[in-house]
């Protein structure tokens, strides 16, 4: 079978009758069979179900009445609820738990005839930058020798990278879609906050969480966004703004005004190849007639503290429901309530998750609330105002997706601060709620992919995708 990288190619061949959905699913299942044991991208594979669904879609294609995503074999991150299927957020705490409803994004892809082939590994509750913080063990990058996939949607990225599915739905709270997409040489889109309903997305930090696609092409990300975006009765925070035809991919302008963060591109901490690739991309943009200017972002040093104070605060509360009482894991020999709580949560949550719960509990506590939470909210507003003001003068803000390419497995796990620094460039989009994409931008000396991040104004996904597609060479 041909190695497809876009849905359009697949649909063309499906309509021509040269392939069938069943063959596609069999192809991906074979790859999963061969590679998953090593890469650990999927934690559940719905083989029988996907084949059955493939036959149904094949019939639909024959009848000429098929959905927009017919022929798309999709994997979903273990944070998305898929009715009657296990979902565990990469955590032991949800052992044995099955979703009782379809999340909105999941429902919408199913309605358009996507075939969900399986559930993908991720950092526990999306808390991690390397996908090493999972109850199911680390995900391995398909490229390089023992490199991390990036996180937290590591399984979702590697699954696409290794042709175990065509596309994935991940989630992005601080870079969790863009970072693994960057580490794996893929396209990863984090939409504007509230563009996609969060109904059925297991919350890490409610005011940051976004569902986003990971694909091989910008076009597939655009098509997926078209399907999953839009208003939803179940999520009162979701935007009612009209969903545009993102997949047209026609840029409105010939030349754009682009700003890059001086601190990000000129930083000493940047891996030389990443720096070189970024500068090369900026030069390329200039050569294409775009205006490219450096801007200062003095608040950049506040990105990570703001992000970690607010997300841990929200997550300490969001994760309180996992108490061993109603569902999921309960520690054995829990004879008394407090003991049950302590044992259950200590035994089930991993260190990083416990660290964040404790940090969040601390910043929300009465004596420290104003010093941390209130202050971080203020800084969040300042960062937003400053970012918005930049985007009044520029169409896009660009920078490398991450300061380095994928780390070696275990390289950063001992030092959380080093780990958090990897999120430096991606968290801004979540702090301010703006759309951002990571597109491939070459490789380092060892062949590890480099990502290039583009951020746009609120609900400017159409322009963002069209521009990204145009500059992806």
């Amino acid at each position: 079978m041909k190695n497809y990288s876009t849905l359009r190619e697949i649909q063309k061949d499906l309509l021509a009758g040269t392939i069938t959905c069943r063959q596609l699913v069999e192809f991906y299942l074979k790859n999963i069979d061969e590679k998953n044991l090593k890469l650990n991208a999927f934690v559940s594979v719905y083989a029988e179900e996907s084949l059955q669904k493939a036959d149904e879609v094949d019939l639909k294609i024959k009848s000429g009445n098929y959905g927009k995503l017919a022929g798309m074999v999709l994997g979903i991150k273990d944070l998305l609820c898929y009715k009657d299927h296990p979902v565990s957020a990469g955590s032991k705490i949800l052992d044995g738990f099955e979703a009782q409803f379809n999340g909105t994004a999941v429902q919408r892809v199913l309605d358009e005839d996507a075939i969900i082939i399986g559930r993908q590994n991720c950092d526990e509750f999306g808390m991690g930058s390397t996908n090493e913080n999972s109850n199911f063990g680390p995900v391995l990058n398909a490229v390089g020798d023992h490199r991390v996939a990036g996180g937290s949607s590591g399984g979702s990225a590697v699954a696409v990278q290794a042709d175990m599915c065509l596309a994935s739905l991940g989630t992005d709270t601080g870079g969790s879609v863009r970072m693994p997409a960057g580490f794996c040489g893929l396209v990863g889109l984090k939409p504007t906050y509230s563009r996609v309903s969060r109904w059925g997305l297991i919350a890490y930090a409610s005011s940051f969480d976004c569902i986003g696609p990971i694909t091989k092409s910008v076009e597939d990300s655009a098509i997926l966004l078209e399907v999953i975006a839009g208003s939803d009765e179940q999520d009162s925070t979701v935007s009612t703004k009209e969903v545009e035809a993102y997949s047209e991919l026609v840029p409105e302008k010939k030349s754009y005004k682009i700003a890059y963060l001086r601190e990000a591109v000129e930083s000493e901490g940047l891996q030389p190849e990443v720096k070189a690739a970024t500068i090369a991309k900026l030069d390329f943009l200039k050569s294409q007639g775009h205006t490219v200017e450096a801007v200062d972002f003095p608040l950049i040093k506040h990105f990570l503290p703001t992000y970690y104070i607010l997300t841990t605060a929200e997550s300490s509360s969001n994760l309180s429901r996992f108490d061993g009482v109603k569902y999921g894991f309960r520690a054995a020999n829990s004879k008394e309530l407090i003991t049950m709580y302590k044992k259950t949560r200590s035994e089930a949550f991993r260190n990083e998750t416990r660290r964040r719960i404790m940090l969040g509990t601390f910043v929300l506590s009465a004596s420290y609330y104003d010093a941390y939470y209130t202050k971080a909210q203020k800084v969040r507003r300042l960062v937003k105002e400053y970012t918005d003001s930049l985007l009044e003068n520029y169409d896009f803000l660009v920078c490398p997706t991450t300061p380095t390419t994928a780390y070696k497995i275990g390289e950063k796990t001992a030092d959380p601060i080093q780990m958090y620094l990897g999120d430096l460039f991606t968290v801004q989009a979540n702090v301010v709620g703006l759309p951002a994409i990571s597109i491939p931008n070459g490789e380092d000396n060892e062949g590890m992919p480099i990502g290039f991040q583009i951020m746009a104004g609120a609900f400017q996904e159409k322009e963002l995708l069209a521009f990204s597609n145009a500059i992806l060479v």
Partner: protein
Amino acid sequence: MNPEIRSKYEVVIGLEVHAQLQTETKIFAADPASFGALPNTHISPITLGHPGTLPKLNRKAVEYAIKLGLAVGSKISDRQYFDRKNYFYPDLPKGYQITQDKTPICIGGGVKVKLKEGEKTVRFHHIHLEEDAGKMLHLDGESDSLVDYNRAGTPLVEMVTEPEIKSAEEAFQFMTEVRKLVRYLGICDGNMEEGSLRCDVNVSVMPVGSKVFGTKVEIKNMNSIRNVYRAIEFEIPRQIEMVERGEAIIQETRSFDANTGKTHGMREKESMNDYRYFPEPDLTPLIISEDWLSAVKTQMPALPWELFEKFTREYHLPEYDAGVLTDSREIAEYFEATCSFTNNYKAVSNWIMGTVKSYLNENNLEISDFSVSPERLAQLIILVDEDKVSNSTAAQKIFPELLKDSVKTPLQIAETNNLIQQSNTDSLQSLIDEVLAANQPKVKEYKQGKKGLLGMFMGEIMKKSKGSADPKVTTALLQKTLDSL
């Protein structure tokens, strides 16, 4: 307690009253919010706090809170947000309660209470919206606890008073007014036994004239207004005695035991809790527009004190009557409806407070179960007013028939049963003559001065007329006849 010692202290009481709103569905989910279903049947992934679920605000609950706010004269906030109150307990499915900590929906307002010393307004600090928790069940002899999540997520308003209630009596009157009000508004059934109306009492004592409040104690678990009264009556001397003995009062939560009438400390220390409130990120700010507010205003029913005013001023009823009739919205409405058919308001009042109420009480019925329509009751009252039947005939003979027969008018019932009073003096005179003729010896005794026999003659005449003789007219005629003998 020695009244002299008691009088040295001033009592400060603040109430936190929770009222469960009678919306059809829960405040953030579509599950039914009604009471009494089998455990864990009114639940859904949202109610159970399943991962991936989000709250969706029930606008009806908001409207109910607005109604309450409007009724008590609160300022209704036009923009507000919800907060999370974080704590662990098995009956709290998400590990936090969605409430309004910083921006309550209603600010200020108050309720007038009638006291022996006169009227007083108990002011509200605020009223806010929140969700209820589930219920823990501990079965006798079982080591496991059970949780019923039916109640989890039912909408509540919490009314927080200023600390300006001075006695158990004031608290009692206040709760009575609040219960009446929420029932009038149709936002809560006011049932304290089932817990749809709950009251936590904060009590402290301080020396008269002191500017500094004493340490307050919170009392929970009173399942009736009477028990709120009893709990405070127990707590005041307990605290005063402690202060008198020089003991420090501990800030704590105490539970009231209705069997003993005592309060006792609960183990959990509320003051230790840090609820880590922060704005609920899963809900957008709640905006109450002018239009919305106006729409709710048009749905406001007449309030008890407005009706009280109307009944005393327009209908000239005594305050006592107006008080009884406005005790419940249904009674007041029945009264008003009846008054649209007759102007004899006092008679309507007497009927409702007397015959109707005792019938309802004896049969354990509510006015809503009462089968006699206001129009038919008015017809009966008119029948009496027209001297066609006596009051006692109406109450004892026609009223029971009205209950049984919903077709015939009171007049038809009176006619069929020969109950129309005979005020026709001709036929009365012949009855009187008959009776007197049949009782010659007694007539002689009467004439000799045994005037008490008049009643006996009356009784005989009434018997012969089968009760249809108009007693007033008959007495006069009888007297005249006897005098002329």
